[in-house]
């Protein structure tokens, strides 16, 4: 089985979000980068599948050279090789076009992604890649087992789960609890250094949208503290002041 896992290189979940250049660029000053948490689940599940039934895992990222440490981390967790498509990930259509271009004619049985990236939050790249490759895509995948050529999937729906059977190949947007996040061990980190990381050039695409500017939410107002003995006061404030009851 050949698995392609698409990973993002995103600010750590605790990062302070700020912008520069007249609110048109993310301020990466002092920011730590990680594999997107959902993508991390996808990598972890791919590694489990490799361990249980055999597979080769390629990871792919659309990004500039600074994403390579993040890619190496995925190699350290257990991916076999990596592709970095050398371009700024401008928008989801651009990214999906690049991934589809790398994946087409390469015979991947499974393309695993995160349900969404935590910077862009599009939740769309898996859908677009599926559409471009003319294969199905499933999102919010919380369980994925492979039996012969058929995948048994549980996906999260509002208030519960839906069970699906689907023939490979397809694209899956993964989320927890599909697998346990894996922490690379020393041996993994050592071997990752010599695993192939191929850098390829992007293909041209047309542009569907254009960033105008970023904006931060308005600062939060002051908090009102209420005496724990006086919950009727809280209820009255929620009803008459906040008007939410």
């Amino acid at each position, binding site marked *: 089985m050949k698995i392609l896992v698409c990973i993002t290189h995103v600010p750590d*979940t605790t990062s302070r979000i700020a912008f520069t250049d007249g609110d048109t660029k993310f301020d990466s000053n002092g920011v730590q980068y990680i594999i997107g948490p959902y993508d991390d689940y996808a990598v972890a599940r791919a590694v489990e599948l490799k361990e249980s039934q055999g597979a080769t895992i390629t990871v792919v990222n659309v990004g500039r050279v600074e994403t390579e440490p993040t890619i190496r981390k995925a190699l350290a967790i257990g991916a076999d090789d990596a592709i970095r498509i050398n371009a700024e990930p401008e928008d989801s259509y651009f990214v999906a076009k690049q991934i589809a271009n790398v994946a087409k004619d390469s015979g991947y049985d499974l393309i695993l992604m995160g349900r969404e990236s935590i910077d862009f939050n599009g939740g*769309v790249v898996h859908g677009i890649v599926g559409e471009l490759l003319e294969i199905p895509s499933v999102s919010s995948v919380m369980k994925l087992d492979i039996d012969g050529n058929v995948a048994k999937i549980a996906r*999260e729906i509002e208030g519960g789960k839906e069970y699906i*059977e689907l*023939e490979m190949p397809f694209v899956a947007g993964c989320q927890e609890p599909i697998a346990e996040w894996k922490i690379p061990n020393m041996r993994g980190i050592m071997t990752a250094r010599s695993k192939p990381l191929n850098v390829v050039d992007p293909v041209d695409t047309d542009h569907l*949208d254009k960033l105008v500017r970023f*904006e931060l939410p308005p600062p939060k107002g002051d908090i009102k503290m209420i005496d724990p003995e006086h919950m009727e006061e809280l209820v009255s404030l929620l009803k008459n002041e906040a008007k*939410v009851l």
Partner: protein
Amino acid sequence: MSVIVFVEHDEGRIKKSSKEAVCYAAALNSGDVIALVCGNTEQKEMELLGQNGANRVLHATESRLDHGDIQAYASVISQAMDKENANIVVLAKSSVSDAVAARTAIKADASFATNVTELPDTADGFKVKRSIFTGNAFAWVELLKARKVICISKNAVIYKEEGGSAGVIDFSPVLTDNDFKSNVTGRDKATGKVLLPEAEIIVSGGRGLKGPENWGMIEDLAEALGAATGCSKPVSDLEWRPHHEHVGQTGVKVSPNLYIAVGISGAIQHLAGVNSSKVIVVINKDPEAPFFNAADYGVVGDAFEVVPKLTEAVKAMRS
């Protein structure tokens, strides 16, 4: 010109979020608003979409559309766009809508945006505001193509119920086996409950509640308020509560009018899922809990004493 709204339903009832999407489409003022409903739904429910601003309803009755098949929905929507000469499609955030929006846009050669939080700015071009960094920032994006697919988040528009009833027209798009490759074999679903992403009020519990046996008081408060229940990630990891109740960065993102957090510390990853709530109440015994920095109202106290008192006060107000 016209606008198509992809309308989702749950157990035959049209989702509030989809009705909101109809309101959004009406507020665009870009021609007729056509609600597209797939699969088995109550006739009355569809007609009532007129109150939200739908001029008519297209009903794709094919029974295979009862399930949330992303490919099939995208095919139906793009065919409806052609049939109705529609330039804009509006969807509401759901477990399938982002991906449906994306596939539809590719089929229809359209620009697209998900997590859109307000009406577009059309003064010069067509610009939408979308939420990014899990609610911690926004991006204004210009959609360049003539056709546009927009997936909105909750509260993107003022909700309205006025106007009359909409006529329902049968719609039979051409669908092939290729559109239905995912074979749905079953569902496990809480029935008759307020769904978390749709809820106006949410009562959420964290590890401070010590164990699943203590959720009774959370449920009592939720019931008194007509609220849905949520939880923090460790609570669902420990299987005290089902996974679909877990709120935050890796769970459900919610934007209720009122979010009441009980015994939750307020880690940034939890806040990421709740920061678009209108009003936040935090109950925590530790006055230093970070959640207080994100709250509108705070109560420092022991949840086991405070929550029952709050439930009584709500009941007293409601009676």
